[in-house]
């Protein structure tokens, strides 16, 4: 049976996760490779690394992280943040990532989506998108960039469709309104985009409780759900979330070891 994916997101700066993550037993772990291995072993279906390294000189560190992660875990993972050219994409994919994610860079240069898809296959190219509720936009949501700080002229639904037409193989849809609230995903936005595009949609932003994943799978029609702080700080675990979803009749991958 086809299963809903739980995607664990890790923010990495200068080769370290941004906040020490308390993984079972309250041990602070800052090494992204060690964390990746632990999430792999406890049933994450996929991982996403966002490189928020500010300085260009330190970008190479991320490629070392990607290489080490690829040697340790045998599930798909993607890398986003700072990918501005097809050469950047190539470096990350050759280092062992399954997919690359473009966000602000694709808004500034939409051509990169098609170039990447033509060169590496569309299954490798993920559009990351940050959306903010805005009644003046046709769909009711506006695309924002630079982590939500900068508004664009793009309508969220229109941009999602355009990106898929250009060759994006998946969309990670992050609600800036919901992000960090732990009050649940933005199901309305997720459903609208998921029903409008042919490719899988990963819901992001707002996860705090296992029931939020149920809501975004059932009501939001998401194909996958991204989780971060709700699992990073020991509040919930991936196995616990999966057991809950399974009990609610949502197909998930329960056998992972």
């Amino acid at each position: 049976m086809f299963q809903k994916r739980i995607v664990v997101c890790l923010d990495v700066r200068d080769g370290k996760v941004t906040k020490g993550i308390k993984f079972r037993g309250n041990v602070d772990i800052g090494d992204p490779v060690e964390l990746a291995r632990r999430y792999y072993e406890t049933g994450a279906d996929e991982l996403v690394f966002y490189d928020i390294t500010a300085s260009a000189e330190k970008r190479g560190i991320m490629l070392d992280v990607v290489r080490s992660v690829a040697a340790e875990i045998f599930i798909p993972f993607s890398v986003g943040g700072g990918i501005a050219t097809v050469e950047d994409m190539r470096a990350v994919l050759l280092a062992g990532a399954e997919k690359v994610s473009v966000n602000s860079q694709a808004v500034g240069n939409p051509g990169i989506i098609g170039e990447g898809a033509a060169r590496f296959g569309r299954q490798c190219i993920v559009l990351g998108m940050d959306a903010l509720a805005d009644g003046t936009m046709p769909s009711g949501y506006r695309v924002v960039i630079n982590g939500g700080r900068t508004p664009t002229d793009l309508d969220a639904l229109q941009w999602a469709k355009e990106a898929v037409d250009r060759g994006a193989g998946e969309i990670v849809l992050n609600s800036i309104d919901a992000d960090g609230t732990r009050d649940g995903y933005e199901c309305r936005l997720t459903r609208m985009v998921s029903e409008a595009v042919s490719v899988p949609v990963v819901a992001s932003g707002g996860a705090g409780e296992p029931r939020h994943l149920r809501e975004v799978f059932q009501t939001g029609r998401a194909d996958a759900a991204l989780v971060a702080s709700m699992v990073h700080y020991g509040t919930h675990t991936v196995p616990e979330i999966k057991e809950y979803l399974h009990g609610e009749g949502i197909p998930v991958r329960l056998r992972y070891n």
Partner: protein
Amino acid sequence: MTVAIVDYDAGNLRSVETALARLQVDYRVVRRGEELREADRLVLPGVGDAGSAMATLRESGLADAIMHFFATGRPILGICLGSQIVLDRSEESDARCLGLIPGSVVALPRDAGYKIPHMGWNTIEPLVDHPLFRGIEEDSSFYFVHSYVPKPEQGESILAECEYGVRFAAVVGRENLVAAQFHPEKSGVAGLRMLDNFLQWMP
């Protein structure tokens, strides 16, 4: 034992390499037909377009070398695109393929109400008792990313099926060839187990 991983410019092979490294087997990435001579087993990975993949395989002499490899009875594992090009032909780019298994490769239906590509984890249902499936629990999941599926002419070439709007052949095979539409190298412990089964397999 040396395993040859065929590199024909169809996606990167890094995940197959790291998985074989984890299983502590010697492997070599090969780009030319003559490099297959010394190999004991062959892995044919790949993602992307069947037409350009076949063009590269023919130019490099790999297409003929793979046919010869098969004829000598040494084990072959196809993965993803590598499981499609072992059939006669593919709807994708109308490509003529290797023809090791009679049949064609067809697009997944777009009207079944399912997202295309089929991207994510799915269970498979073995139809035969093949050594490839040894020790793999029936509720194990495997990672798929594809828009086309193999459709062998003979039912006996289908070793396992999967359901995604339609039922399709998830594993095909014949004699010393097995080919999986999913990515065992990205399918966690169950996938590594399947790769290990392939390495132990004595067809």
